[in-house]
């Protein structure tokens, strides 16, 4: 899922500066699962904003709403009756949702309430780690299901660097060396021959180096 972290409160208050009535729009997708932008978090943020503004003698009216996903046109359409009533929209979705909202509602400013941080998963409730860097060319077949692009600090493709010590990365003793994990895993699967094959210099074009990416299912195009 896409992981987002709420922006610092002062930054959110700054963005809402001159507005008197805003829509705080939660997203029911990834950011609900990672507990930063769903219905509950929209309520919490609205309450905080109302209190902060009320305290400063500059009250603000807030409409709280949450849609299934903000990265799909049919869901953000549900905000159509509300958006013309407000001065601005504070979107609690990832950067994708914010842009969808901004594109659909051209006359209303749309602000992000989150910093979109990475693509990851949870190791336990409320604890998220990065696992994929969306490089566009998955190498997990060769590396025992552990991604060297996202999880090796240097994104090395052919084994660890000299900074790997006792299975940990030199950047932080808490961070596992991805290549140590890969070798351990390949060994346990008896697949070390895959480690012997050299991986060629990476083609970064499917990554961001080729500009904004798109994916099209032709059979769905009408």
């Amino acid at each position, binding site marked *: 899922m896409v992981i987002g972290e709420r922006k610092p*409160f*002062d930054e959110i208050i700054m963005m809402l500066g001159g507005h008197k009535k805003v829509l705080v729009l939660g997203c029911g997708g990834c950011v609900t699962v990672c507990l930063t932008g769903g219905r509950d978090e929209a*309520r*919490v943020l609205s*309450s905080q904003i109302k*209190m*902060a503004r*009320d*305290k400063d003698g500059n009250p603000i009216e807030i409409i709280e709403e949450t849609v299934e996903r903000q990265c799909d046109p049919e869901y953000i359409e549900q905000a159509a009756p509300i958006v013309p009533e407000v001065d601005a929209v504070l979107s609690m979705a990832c950067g994708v949702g914010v842009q969808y909202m901004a594109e659909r509602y051209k006359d209303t400013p749309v602000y992000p309430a989150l910093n979109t941080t990475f693509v990851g998963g949870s190791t336990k409730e409320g604890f998220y780690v990065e696992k994929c860097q969306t490089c566009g060319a998955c190498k997990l077949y060769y590396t025992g299901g552990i991604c060297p692009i996202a999880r090796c600090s240097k994104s090395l493709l052919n084994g660890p660097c000299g900074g790997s010590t006792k299975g940990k990365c030199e950047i932080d003793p808490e961070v596992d060396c991805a290549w140590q994990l890969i070798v351990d895993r390949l060994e346990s699967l008896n697949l070390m021959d895959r480690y012997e094959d050299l991986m060629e210099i990476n083609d970064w074009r499917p990554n961001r180096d080729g500009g904004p990416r798109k994916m099209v299912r032709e059979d769905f195009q009408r």
Partner: protein
Amino acid sequence: MADFEPTIVAFCCHYCAYGAADLAGSMRLEYPTNIRIIRLPCTGKITPVFLLRAFEKGADGVYVAGCLEGDCHFIQGNLVAKPRVNYTKKLIQEVGLEPERLEMFNMSAAMGPRFAEVAREFTERIKGLGPSPLNKKYRKISEQAA
């Protein structure tokens, strides 16, 4: 503000603090009338939204009273509530309220005197902090004075 009488919301677990409040009453113990009790099935029911809404509506102080640690009727509801209360302290601090306006206490249903003591202590603490800037009644008074 010498005559300040705070409004305090106490979220009390049905299995302990709510019973303790009842016992305090049966024992004819005196405690301040500033406390407004809201009964919860378990403090595990509490979320930051509940606590923030209380402050938003002008409560000067809010506390959550749950079972003694290890004694939750639902095994670990009070242990769920504790970090949520601590997290909400940070949220109210961001808004500019003192985190001391929010607290979690633990007691059993047999601790009527402790309930009264907590109510007294917390009321004193909030009196010391003064009215919440969101308390409309006292804001009006201070605006008029100014």
